[in-house]
Each structure stands twice: as C-alpha cells, then as structure tokens.
C-alpha cells in the first residue's frame, strides 16, 4: 500500500476548488444608438457597473505596474477623438501603504466621436474593447477585455 495518494490535475483542481469566478464583477450597459450627420461631433455614454466590494484601477493608476481601465474603438463610421472618465477615488486598501486611484460602484465613460464629412449615410456597427483589472481588499482578478459595440446611424 502506498501512503501517498495519487491525484490527477482534474481531481486536484476539484479538491482545491476555484478561488473566484470572474464573470459579473464588471458589467456594462450597451451604449445607446449614435445618430450623427457627416462632419458632426457626438458623445456616447458607456454606463459601467462594478460588483460591490470590488474596484478597478482608474485610467490613470497610482503605480506603473497597475493595469489602467481602457476603452478603445476600432476604425469605423465614427472616429473616437477623446474620452472622459469620472474623477477617480483615492482609496486606501489593507494591502497598500498609499491610497490607490480607482473606480468603484457605477460610473460612466464618455467617448467623443466625430463623423467624417465623407461618412456614407446608413446604419453601421462600431466595435471596441473595454480592458480592466479588478481587485477587492484582499485579492485581484486577472486583467480582462470585454467586447463593446455601438450601433451607429449616419443621417443626411
């Protein structure tokens, strides 16, 4: 008889259990359809919800090692010309000596778009990515990138 119990990786995984399942820590409401005339500038709001007890690093984190919140848009019928993030909270956590620049709770990211003067009228879809890295007071979840899409209508 052997005293050392054999355990496959799958069995080991089951024994150890999952530390945390990431789905649902950060959710966003799909932005409202953007309607723009060629040459016009419009703002699109992306409402974001974070699970209570969690934070994400702001777009301007306190440390170079920390992963910022980023929203990017692919090339499409509208051109992103700027972003407005909320004012970050400076929060002190038990793992950090100094306060960290973070977002918590519900907040909005506003993208300013410009429709090129040559934009062809009609519907289109603009795709983008929302990248974040979330933590609570004692653990961090791996960075995650979510797909974002914006319905666009170019009108005359």
């Amino acid at each position, binding site marked *: 008889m052997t005293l050392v119990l054999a355990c496959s*990786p799958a*069995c080991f*995984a089951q024994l150890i259990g*999952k530390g945390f399942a*990431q789905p649902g820590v950060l959710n966003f409401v799909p932005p409202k359809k953007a309607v723009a005339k060629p040459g016009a500038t419009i703002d699109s709001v992306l409402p974001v919800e974070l699970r209570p007890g969690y934070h994400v690093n702001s777009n301007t984190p306190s440390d170079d*090692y920390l992963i910022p919140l980023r929203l990017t848009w692919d090339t499409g019928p509208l051109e992103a010309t700027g972003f407005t993030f909320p004012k970050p909270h400076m929060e002190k956590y038990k793992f950090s000596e100094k306060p960290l620049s973070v977002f918590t709770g519900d907040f909005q990211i506003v993208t300013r778009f410009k429709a090129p003067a040559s934009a062809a009228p009609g519907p289109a879809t603009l795709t983008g990515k929302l990248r974040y890295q979330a933590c609570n007071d004692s653990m961090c*979840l791996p*960075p995650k990138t979510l797909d974002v899409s914006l319905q666009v209508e170019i009108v005359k």
Partner: protein
Amino acid sequence: MSRYYRAAALVLMLGLASCSKSKQEIEARMPAESKRQKAPEISLKDANGDTVSLADYKGKVVLINFWATWCGPCEAEIPWFIEFEQKYKSRDFAVLGISMDDDGWKSVRPYMAAHKMTYRIVIGNDTVAQKYGEIDALPTSFILDRQGRVAAHHVGLVDKSDYQNEILKLLEDPKSAALHDAGPGLLAGLLRPAHR
C-alpha cells in the same frame, strides 16, 4: 504579589493561551498527513533560463506563490516571503514564486529588481494554473510539506502570522523531519508495500 507582577503574570498567561490556540487552529486547518495530496508537478523556467521542477525541492517545505506584478495584495506579501526564506532557509524551507504576467520576464525582471526579490521566480502559464485548480484570483499560495504534499492553501491576502505558523508547523513536524533526516531510503521503505 505586587500589582505589577500580577499584571505581568496575566499578560504571560494570555500570551501562552493565544499561542496555544493559534497552534490548535493551524493544526485543525491543515489536512492530516494521510489526507494531503501530492502537489502537481511543474516544469518552468527561472530568470536564468534553468528549468525548475518540484523535484528540486525534495525534502523541503516549499511555499508556492502564484502572483503578478499588477496585483497589489501580492506586492504586500513579497517582503514576508523574502524574510521567511532568509530566516528558515537553513531548515530546508524555500519560496517559489510563479508569475502569471502575460508578458513574462518583460514585466517581471524589472519588478524583481525594484522589489529586491531574492527567492526563485518562474513564469507560469495556463497549464500550470489549471493543474493547480484554476488560478482565478491572486495571490494564491500553497505550502507543501517535506513530502511534496499540499498542507495549506490560501486564496487572497492572509495574515503574515498565518503563513509563518504553518511554515513553522511543517518545519517542526517531528514525523516529517524524521523522514527527511533519515533520507529517501527510509521514506521509500515506509511507502513500499510490506511483503511477508
């Protein structure tokens, strides 16, 4: 007895009581030796390009720490692990950090230098993370006994004293120490089926 001595005696009694409770808690939390599972094998490269496997740590108590440069709670533990390894190295204790940074040494090497990390670091991957039960949150740590079995498992930041008590418990475990001192020959003998 003066008031001073009575107070000192009370403090001493409370201190002893808390030490004892703490040890009991540690023992209750750690699985019995017969129920501990062998830690999954790893084969990862360290900063020098050398392959690291658990066989390198045969007979040692090992703290395996999954971490990343972007993880604040992981950063808080680094000075503890440096201290533990310096303090208990002579008693056959080692720390092995497994970084889960996507860009590997590009981020990890400068971070190691900035944080004066003296314990061994390797770059992890999804395969190793899956073997260790899906590393969904960092820090995640496993403390292995001298037989390479998982004696403790932590997800998230825990108290420094929790780690320290577990490490000391495993280092002081007379059975483990005896097996280790006796060398692999005796261990193999104990594990071998008895033929009569």
